[in-house]
């Protein structure tokens, strides 16, 4: 009798602990998201590249901690057997190489193109007015279509020069 009463009390206590944990993680996730959004809004008015990079770093740390709380508590991974946790975490550590190698590769490709491809470099310096850009694109299309139709006739004339 007293034993089953004890088990019930244990169950109640366990229930309360689980609910408290859910509440805690919910509040944490909301606060982290709000901080991320505040940083995002703050970044709109900042032009300093170094400061922007620093804020982006903070946002990535916040993102990783949100991911940790979801996986550890909502997906319950923290309360699993250690061997089980390892079979998930160890393969995922491949991401460290995956991210570093590919971002490095991308940035190297940019540097190579800026060095050896003058057109690529020039494109990054020509500013386009938004309205005009759309206009130009439309005009360009129109010209293309016209010249496309006339191309067959033009060709013999061009061949004279060869």
């Amino acid at each position, binding site marked *: 009798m007293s034993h089953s009463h004890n088990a019930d009390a244990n169950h109640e206590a366990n229930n309360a602990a689980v*609910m408290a944990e859910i509440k805690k993680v919910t509040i944490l996730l909301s606060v982290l998201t709000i901080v991320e959004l505040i940083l995002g809004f703050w970044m709109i008015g900042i032009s300093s590249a170094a400061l922007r990079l620093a804020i982006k770093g903070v946002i990535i740390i916040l993102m990783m901690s949100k991911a940790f709380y979801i996986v550890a508590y*909502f997906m319950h991974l923290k309360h699993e057997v250690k*061997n089980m946790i390892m079979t998930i975490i160890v393969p995922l550590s491949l991401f460290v190489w995956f991210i570093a190698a590919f971002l490095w590769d991308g940035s190297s490709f940019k540097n190579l193109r800026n060095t050896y491809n003058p057109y690529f470099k020039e494109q990054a310096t020509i500013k386009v007015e938004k309205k005009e850009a759309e206009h130009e694109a439309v005009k360009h299309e129109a010209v293309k279509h016209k010249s496309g139709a006339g191309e067959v006739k033009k060709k013999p004339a061009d061949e004279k020069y060869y």
Partner: protein
Amino acid sequence: MSTTTTASPNEAKLWGGGKSPFNLEYGKVMMWYFLMSDAFTFGAFLISYGTVRFSTNGWPDSNEVFRSFPFAPEGVHAPLVFVSIMTFILIVSSVTMVLAVHAGHNMDKKGVVRNMILTIIGGIAFLSCQAWEWNHLFHEGAWWGSNPFLNADGTASTTNFTNFFFTITGFHGFHVFSGVVINIIMLIMTLMDKFEQRGHYLMIEKAGLYWHFVDLVWVFVFTIFYLL
């Protein structure tokens, strides 16, 4: 050396059969491994986005692209507002899913049904928000292979931005959609007393793992596309 000799009897007991070494049901272990493979798929998408962005001189400013809001007048400038609502919808639906799993532990059918319905509503609300945003961007001229937005510095942009945006949010949206379908099936099974007959609500836990993963991916997609 000494640690291995002392650990081996325990190890033998753990892996010697007769009990589950991971202390997890087979289906849950397999769901974890499926989600791990899915994480690599999403990781590959997001890392290729990062690679292309790192290899390009300019990139559109997300605060200029994602600045509108439903029912707001044309030309309104409200960056991050709509997407923050989408993010909170998904967090709240994740919380209701945890509550459904918890109710399942207690064999509380009513609690499972109530929280599953709330989770499904959250999922549908998120999908509706995404449908609105896609529709809005499409009417601004953005689609696969078409990018009406300029780079942040005013130079001409490539279609990489819209291609990645629609591919990755589309793939995530498809996951949300399948999650909603799975949750609806779980709700129907709960209402038909399937889990009461089995004596456990483990299927709700497996659906829950999938749903939390969808929320987890959104944490990354939201940060990478809208904040960075």
